[in-house]
C-alpha cells in the first residue's frame, strides 16, 4: 500500500514542463511574458488556498487578506528597511503573514462550515477597508508605489525573462513543499479532518492545532504569491485585498479542480489566459468568466481536472468493485496482534463514579457509576433512552460531565477532550458508523495507528517511509478479516464491512480499554457470530465495555453486566444474576399493562379491504440493504404493531411509508393507489401521518 515513485514526482515534472512551455505558448497566443508571471504567481496563491479548501475542507473567502498582507508587508519592508533588495523583504513578509494569520486563525477557526466562510468573507472586507482607508500606511487609493525588483549578481530582475525565471523557480519550490506536506503524516490528517473531524479527534488528533497550522501555512504560501505580484507591478494597490479578488481566487480553485494539487494552478492559468484573450475583444470578460464559473459549480464541481478524469474513465473504466467484500481473506481465531496488546493491566482499569449530565431539564445520566476490570467484557444494557450512549459520550470526552469523576488507570480523564483521552488509552466505536467515508479502508486504519506517535505532526517525511506503521496496518487488516480489500473506499463497503472498519479504527488507537457501542447492530447472523468472536479475542488482552441490544448474545460472552434505566444504574452483577433479576425483567417487558391478546381473527381480517398495502418493498441506505422484501397489510379498524430488535428496520419501514426514504423496489398502496414513487407523499388526501419516536417536533 505505498505509492509508486512515478506517481509522486509526476506533478513536479508536469509543472516543470508547463513552466518551460508557458512562455512559448503565450507568445503563440500573442501575449506577453508579464501574463506568464501573473499566471505563475496566481497559481501559487491558488494552490496555497486549496490547502485549506480541497485538503482540509475549510472554504476560505478571505485569502485575499493574506495575498494583500504579503504584498504590503514586502513592499513596506523594502521601502523602509531594505531598499533595492528583494530576498529579505520576501522572507520577512512571510513571517508577517504567518504571525497575523496565526492570530486571526485563533479567532475564526473557532467556527466551522458556513460560519467559517462568512467570517473569512468579513475578514476580506475588513482588510479591504483597512488598506483603502489607512492611507498613511498603505497609500490608500493610490497604492504603495516605488518598489524595486532588485537583482541577482549582475542580472537585473527588471528583465522580464529573469523575473519570470525567479517566480517560476519559487513556484516550483512552493509546489515541492506542498507535495511533501500532503504526502506527510500531517497532510494525511488534514484529509481526515475534511472527511470527518469528529472521528479524527476521537482518534487522538488535536484537530484545532492541525487546522491552525494548515491555516497559517496556506496563508503564508498565498502571501508569498502576493509579494511576488507586488514586485512584478512595482506597486501594491488595494485591489490586491478586495473581496472580488478573494472570489476570483476561489473561482480559480473550483474551475481548476480542488481535489488535486495542480488543479488550482490550472485554474489560475485558465483565469489569466481567459482574461487576456477575452479582454481583447470585449470589455465584459468578467461576465463570461462569471458564467463559466457558475457553470462549473453547477455541472462540474470537480473542475477541469474532474472533467479530464471523467474523459479518461471512458477509455479506462475503473474495475468493478461491487462484490468488494467477497475478495477479502478471513482468518478465523487469530490472536490479537502483539503491538496492540497493552502492557500488563491489573485491577480496575476504568472507574466511573457519580457521573451526571443534564440537557436542559432532561437528566440523561444521573449519578451513574461503572467499573471495568482488566480481562473482562463488561456489558452495558438497558432499554432505549436509558442513557447508555450518553454515558459513552461522557466517558470518551464528547460531553463534559456536570458531576462525577472518570478515572482511567487511576488517572483523572474528566473534561480533557476526546483526543487527550484517546492518548490516555481509551478508544471507542460508534453506534452509527462514523468513518472517513471517502478514504480507503487501509487509510482509515493507518490514521489510527499513526495518531499515537510523535511523527503525527511531521510535515516533511513521506508517509511511505514509516515502514513500521504500514506493517502494523497490514496486520490489523488481517486480524479484522479485511485483508485483500485495502484500496476500497470505506463508504463503498457493505454495512457489515463498515462496522468492522469502525471497530478497527477504535482498536488501532492501541487502547487499554475499548468502548464498543452496539457493534452487532444491523449485522446478519453469520456476521454477528464472527464479530462476537473478534470481540472475545480482543477482550483476552484489552478490557471491553460494550453496549449491545442482542441481550442473549451479550449475556453469553460478558463477565459483568451493568443495567441502566432512565439515566441511572440499576445494578451491576454477573449475567446469571441479571437474567434472574425481577427488576430487569420488568424493564424489558414492562409491568402493570394488561396482557393484550395479540391474535388476529383471520375471518374478520379477510373481510375488510386493506387500507395500506406494503408489498415486497426494498429500501437501501447507500449500500446497506435495510428492508428486504418487506410486506405488510393494514386494514380498516386495525392496530398493527411492528416489533423487532434494534436495527431490524422498523423506523425505516415507517419512513418508507411516509416517503422520507425512497423505496428501491416494491409497491406501497394506499386506498388502492400506488404511492411508492411519490416523493414525500405529496399526493393529497394520503393522510398518512407519522409520529416520530424521539421528540423531533418543531418547537414552533
Amino acid at each position, binding site marked *: 500500500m505505498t505509492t509508486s515513485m512515478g506517481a509522486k514526482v509526476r506533478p513536479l515534472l508536469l509543472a516543470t514542463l508547463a513552466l518551460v512551455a508557458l512562455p512559448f505558448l503565450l507568445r503563440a497566443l500573442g501575449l506577453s511574458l508579464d501574463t506568464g508571471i501573473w499566471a505563475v504567481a496566481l497559481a501559487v496563491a491558488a494552490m496555497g488556498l486549496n490547502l485549506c479548501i480541497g485538503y482540509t475542507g475549510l472554504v476560505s473567502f478571505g485569502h485575499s487578506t493574506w495575498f494583500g498582507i504579503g504584498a504590503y508587508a514586502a513592499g513596506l519592508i523594502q521601502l523602509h528597511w531594505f531598499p533595492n533588495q528583494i530576498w529579505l523583504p520576501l522572507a520577512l513578509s512571510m513571517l508577517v503573514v504567518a504571525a497575523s494569520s496565526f492570530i486571526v486563525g485563533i479567532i475564526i477557526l473557532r467556527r*466551522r462550515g458556513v460560519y467559517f466562510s462568512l467570517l473569512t468573507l*468579513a475578514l476580506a472586507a475588513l482588510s479591504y477597508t483597512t488598506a483603502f482607508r489607512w492611507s498613511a500606511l498603505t497609500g490608500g487609493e493610490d497604492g504603495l508605489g516605488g518598489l524595486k525588483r532588485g537583482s541577482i549578481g549582475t542580472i537585473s530582475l527588471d528583465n522580464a525573462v529573469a523575473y519570470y525565471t525567479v517566480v517560476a523557480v519559487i513556484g516550483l519550490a512552493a509546489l515541492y513543499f506542498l507535495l511533501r506536506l500532503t504526502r506527510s503524516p500531517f497532510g494525511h490528517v488534514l484529509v481526515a479532518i475534511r472527511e470527518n473531524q469528529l472521528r479524527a479527534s476521537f482518534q487522538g488528533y488535536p484537530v484545532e492545532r492541525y487546522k491552525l497550522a494548515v491555516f497559517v501555512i496556506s496563508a503564508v504560501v498565498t502571501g508569498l504569491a502576493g509579494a511576488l505580484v507586488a514586485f512584478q507591478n512595482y506597486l501594491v494597490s488595494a485591489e490586491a485585498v478586495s*473581496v472580488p479578488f478573494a472570489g476570483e481566487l476561489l473561482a480559480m480553485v473550483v474551475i481548476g479542480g480542488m481535489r488535486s494539487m495542480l488543479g488550482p494552478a490550472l485554474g489560475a492559468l485558465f483565469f489569466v489566459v481567459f482574461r487576456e484573450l477575452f479582454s481583447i475583444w470585449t470589455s*465584459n470578460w468578467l*461576465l463570461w*468568466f462569471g458564467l463559466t464559473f457558475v457553470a462549473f459549480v453547477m455541472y462540474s464541481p470537480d473542475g477541469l481536472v474532474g472533467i479530464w478524469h471523467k474523459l479518461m474513465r471512458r477509455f479506462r473504466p475503473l474495475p468493478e468493485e461491487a462484490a468488494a467484500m467477497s475478495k477479502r481473506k478471513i482468518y478465523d481465531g487469530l490472536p490479537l496482534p502483539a503491538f496492540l496488546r497493552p502492557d500488563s493491566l491489573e485491577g480496575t482499569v476504568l472507574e466511573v463514579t457519580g457521573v451526571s449530565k443534564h440537557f436542559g431539564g432532561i437528566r440523561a445520566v444521573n449519578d451513574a457509576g461503572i467499573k471495568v476490570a482488566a480481562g473482562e467484557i463488561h456489558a452495558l444494557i438497558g432499554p432505549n433512552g436509558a442513557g447508555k450512549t450518553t454515558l459513552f459520550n461522557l466517558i470518551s470526552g464528547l460531553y463534559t460531565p456536570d458531576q462525577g469523576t472518570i478515572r482511567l488507570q487511576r488517572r483523572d480523564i474528566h473534561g480533557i477532550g476526546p483526543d487527550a483521552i484517546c492518548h490516555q488509552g481509551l478508544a471507542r466505536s460508534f453506534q452509527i458508523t462514523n468513518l472517513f467515508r471517502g478514504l480507503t479502508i487501509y487509510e482509515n486504519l493507518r490514521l489510527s495507528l499513526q495518531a499515537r506517535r510523535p511523527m503525527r505532526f511531521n510535515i516533511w517525511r513521506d508517509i511511505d517511509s514509516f515502514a513500521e506503521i504500514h506493517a502494523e496496518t497490514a496486520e490489523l487488516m488481517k486480524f479484522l478479516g479485511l485483508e485483500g480489500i485495502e484500496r476500497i473506499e470505506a463508504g463503498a463497503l457493505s454495512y457489515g464491512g463498515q462496522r468492522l472498519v469502525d471497530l478497527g479504527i477504535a482498536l488501532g488507537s492501541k487502547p487499554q480499554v475499548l468502548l464498543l457501542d452496539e457493534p452487532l447492530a444491523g449485522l446478519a447472523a453469520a456476521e454477528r457470530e464472527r464479530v462476537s468472536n473478534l470481540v472475545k479475542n480482543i477482550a483476552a488482552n484489552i478490557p471491553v465495555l460494550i453496549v449491545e441490544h442482542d441481550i442473549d448474545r451479550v449475556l453469553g460472552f460478558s463477565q459483568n453486566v451493568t443495567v441502566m434505566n432512565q439515566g441511572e444504574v440499576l445494578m451491576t452483577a454477573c449475567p446469571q444474576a441479571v437474567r434472574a433479576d425481577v427488576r430487569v425483567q420488568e424493564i424489558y417487558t414492562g409491568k402493570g399493562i394488561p396482557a393484550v391478546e395479540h391474535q388476529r381473527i383471520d375471518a374478520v381480517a379477510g373481510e375488510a379491504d386493506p387500507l395500506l398495502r406494503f408489498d415486497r418493498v426494498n429500501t437501501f441506505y447507500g449500500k446497506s440493504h435495510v428492508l428486504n422484501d418487506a410486506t405488510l397489510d393494514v386494514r380498516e379498524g386495525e392496530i398493527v404493531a411492528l416489533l423487532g430488535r434494534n436495527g431490524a428496520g422498523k423506523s425505516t419501514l415507517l419512513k418508507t411509508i*411516509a416517503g*422520507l426514504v425512497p423505496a428501491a423496489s416494491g409497491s406501497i398502496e394506499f386506498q388502492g393507489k400506488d404511492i411508492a414513487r411519490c416523493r414525500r407523499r*405529496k399526493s393529497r388526501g394520503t393522510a398518512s*401521518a407519522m409520529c416520530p419516536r424521539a421528540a423531533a417536533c418543531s418547537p414552533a
Partner: protein
Amino acid sequence: MQLEFLLEQVVNGLVLGGYYLLISLGLSLIFSVGGVVNLAHGAFYALGAYASVEVTQYLGFGPAVVISPVAVAILGIFFERFILRRFYTADPIFGLLVTFGLAMVTEQAIRIIWGAAPLSASIPPAFHGSVFVGDFLFSRYRLLILAVVALVLLGVWFLLQRTSFGRVVRAGIQRPDMVAALGIRLEPYMMAVVMLGVGMAALGGAFFAPITVVQPAMGDEIITVAFVVVVIGGLGSFWGVVIAALLVGVVRGITINYVPAAGEASIYILMFAVLLVRPRGLLGERIEKFE
C-alpha cells in the same frame, strides 16, 4: 451637550440600521429556510435600485418603488426554480459559490446595460426638506424610509408569527424533513420566501437609490454588511436580525463621528467581538446543518 450629541448619533444610526434591515431580513430568511448563503442578494438590491431609477423616468417615484420590487421578486422565481433549488440539500459551500458567481454575472450585466458610470436619482419633491421631531432635525425622506422599514418589519413579523404560512416556514427552518413528513411540500414555501427576500432587497434598493450612489458594484458593498448583521443577530432569529441591524447602524454612526476612516472597519470588529462572546450570534440557535 455631549448626551444630546450622542442621542442624535444613535437616532441617525437607527436610520442606517433600518437600511441594513431591509437587506438582511430577506437574506436571513433564505439562509434559514433553504440553507443557502445567498451571496447574490446584493445583486438583487442593485437591480431594485436600477429598475426604480428606470421606471421613475417614465412613471414617477410612486409607481417605481412598487413596480421595481415586484419585478425583482418575479425574477426571484426563476432564480429559485432553476438555480437555488438544486443547492438546498447540497453542501452549503456550493450554494455559496454559485450565488457568488451569479453576483459577479449580475454586476457585469448591469455594467453592460446601464454603463459603469453612476446614475443619478433624486428625492421626489414631496419629500424635500426637513422637519423637527422634538429637538432633532430630520430630512423628510429619511423619515419616510424609516416608516417604510417599520411597515415592512411589521408585515413580515405578522406573516411569520400569525399566519399558517409563517408557521410552516418557521417549522421548515428547524426540521424540514418533519414538515415533509406531515405531507407539506416545502418547495412552494421556499419559492415564496425567496420572492419575499429578494423583493425586500429590491425595495431597499428602490428607496435608497436617491440617497446613495447607484453604481454597478453597489451590491458588493451592501452584501458583506448584510451578512455581518445576520451573523451578529444569529441564524434563524427574526429579532436577532432586527437588533443586530440597529446595533450595527448605531456603532457605525458613532464611529464615523469620532474616527471617520474606521467607520467601515468598526462593524467587522463588532462582529468578531460578538462572535467571541456568543459564537452563534446574539439570538442564534443551534441549527445542525450550518455547524
